[in-house]
């Protein structure tokens, strides 16, 4: 009579509609299995009913599990009845040794459980996110403190040298804001202006991305350091025409390839600094020897020697136009705009493990910057040097023009065609037929005149050739 209950449970929907009366049969035979089996369906009914509501597919899986449950219950009962009739249940697998004590708890699929373990993925992810947020806050604060410490230690020097210290360009009047502009969570800049010998000075504090956990991890593989970049822009009268650079060997090699002006004017390989009394680790790129001699006076040599570890690169140039711009259509049509510039890049010592106190170490470097500004104003090439420099610049321009000659011709041609087309369109769009005729005639006359001019020119050339 076990079979009858199996049939009942074949129909999936009925499981939820159970009540105790269905187990009346069990109760008569023995208490324990009834109690055990009774306990099983109601808890099974509860979780299985919810999946039925959510997803048809889930329900069928559930039902199969439920069926297994009852089949096992059946098996337990079989053991009990084996005493009565073994032959009847021949071939029935007795998988469970003792039916009274053990209950088989089916594995509830993970997504139906309501315990913490099912959410381990989420917990992991959220922990990761929290770690990221913590690092963001800590990194942001550290960078902010470093920037403030730098500014506090340099404020006096800057305010005694510049009339305007700190400007974000938005206020109507040119008054010192007296604070850094925050571009990013890791880049701060400061604009100073109002001094002899220069137009202005832009200082950029390029800190490491301490606020980005990915970057922090990447830096564990590849150490990097905070940088302070100073860019002094000069008026035309503040600097003579020369190009010069000094810095670490690696930086010089890189700049010679990257920078437009260093590439064009300083063709030779970087020379060792030892010849001029500065450490071997520094290299010099110069347009001509006279420039190097002029820049490397005693004070400069002293600065470079005592702070060689903090100097990444120093670049003086009257033809500064930034790094080489890669254009897809070949060469650019116009010479890039140049500006007389002094560019300093300093490395903050500590390789990233800097504290706000270390910012004072950079103060002598700012002194060097100020000294350089005054020096460059006084540095004038002698006659020979000046001639050389002018020749260099003319050469560079000529090369450039030659390279772009064909392109400029093509550009001029296209422009002429565009003009013609635009005129024709204007004539076509003219509604008044009379006006149209008149415009057409005017255009024709113009064309004729042009042809005549050309013919005249050709004649003149022929005459001259003769």
């Amino acid at each position, binding site marked *: 009579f076990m079979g009858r209950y199996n049939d009942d449970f074949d129909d999936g929907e009925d499981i939820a509609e159970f009540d105790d009366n269905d187990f009346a049969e069990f109760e008569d035979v023995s208490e324990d299995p009834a109690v055990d089996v009774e306990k099983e369906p109601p808890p099974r009914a509860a979780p299985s009913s919810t999946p039925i509501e959510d*997803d048809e597919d889930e329900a069928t899986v559930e039902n199969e599990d439920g069926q297994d449950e009852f089949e096992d219950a059946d098996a337990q009962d079989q053991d009990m009845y084996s005493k009565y009739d073994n032959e009847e249940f021949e071939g029935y697998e007795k998988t469970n040794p003792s039916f009274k004590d053990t209950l088989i708890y089916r594995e509830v699929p993970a*997504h139906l459980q309501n315990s913490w373990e099912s959410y381990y*993925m989420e917990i992991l*992810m959220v922990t*990761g*996110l929290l770690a*990221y*947020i913590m690092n*963001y806050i800590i990194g942001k604060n550290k960078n902010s403190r470093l920037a403030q410490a730098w500014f506090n230690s340099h404020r006096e020097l800057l305010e*005694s*040298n*510049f*009339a*305007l210290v700190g*400007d*974000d*360009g938005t206020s109507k009047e*040119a008054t010192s804001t007296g604070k850094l*502009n*925050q*571009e*990013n*969570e890791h880049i701060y800049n400061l*604009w100073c*202006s*109002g*001094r*002899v*010998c220069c*137009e*202005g000075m*832009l200082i950029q504090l390029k800190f490491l*991305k301490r*606020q*980005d*956990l*990915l970057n922090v991890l990447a830096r564990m593989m590849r150490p990097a350091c905070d940088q302070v970049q100073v860019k002094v822009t000069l008026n035309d009268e503040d600097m003579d025409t020369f190009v010069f650079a000094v810095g670490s060997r690696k930086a010089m090699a890189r700049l010679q390839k990257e920078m437009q002006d260093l590439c064009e004017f300083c063709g030779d390989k970087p020379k060792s600094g030892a010849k001029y009394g500065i450490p071997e680790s520094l290299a010099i790129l110069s347009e001509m020897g006279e420039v190097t001699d002029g820049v490397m006076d005693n004070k400069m040599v002293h600065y470079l020697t005592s702070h060689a570890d903090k100097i990444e690169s120093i670049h003086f140039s009257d033809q500064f136009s*930034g*790094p080489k*711009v890669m254009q897809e259509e070949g060469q650019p049509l116009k010479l890039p705009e140049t500006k007389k510039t002094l560019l300093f890049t300093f490395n903050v010592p500590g390789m990233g493990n800097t504290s706000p106190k270390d910012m004072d170490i950079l103060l002598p470097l700012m002194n060097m910057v100020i000294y350089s500004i*005054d020096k460059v104003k006084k540095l004038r090439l002698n006659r020979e040097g000046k001639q050389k420099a002018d020749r260099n610049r003319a050469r560079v321009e000529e090369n450039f023009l030659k390279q772009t000659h064909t392109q400029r011709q093509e550009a001029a041609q296209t422009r002429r065609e565009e003009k013609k087309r635009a005129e024709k369109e204007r004539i076509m769009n003219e509604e008044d037929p009379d006006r149209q005729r008149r415009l057409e005639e005017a255009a024709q006359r113009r064309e004729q005149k042009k042809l005549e001019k050309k013919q005249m020119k050709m004649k003149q050339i022929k005459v001259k050739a003769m």
Partner: protein
Amino acid sequence: MTVNNMADPRRPNKIFRYKPPNTETNPTLEDPTPDYMNLLGMIFSMCGLMLKLKWCAWIAVYCSFISFANSRSSEDTKQMMSSFIISDISSTQRNPQM
């Protein structure tokens, strides 16, 4: 011993205003990380929504966090928030598969 050394080098009449550097002419100066991360975040969140892959959605959340951390302060915070929200919504969905 020039007078210049003693004199105040400051010249209030020679003040130039700050002009933010034009990043269009110098594309090398710009850091592309926040833009890439923003794009990746969008892609992953769409993947997560369409293909119902939870890990996609989580990566999208991380991407939007990274993009936010690296972003420039001049950019609109509203735009950042919108990408945040999209990836968050798709990740908090209780998807059946992993």
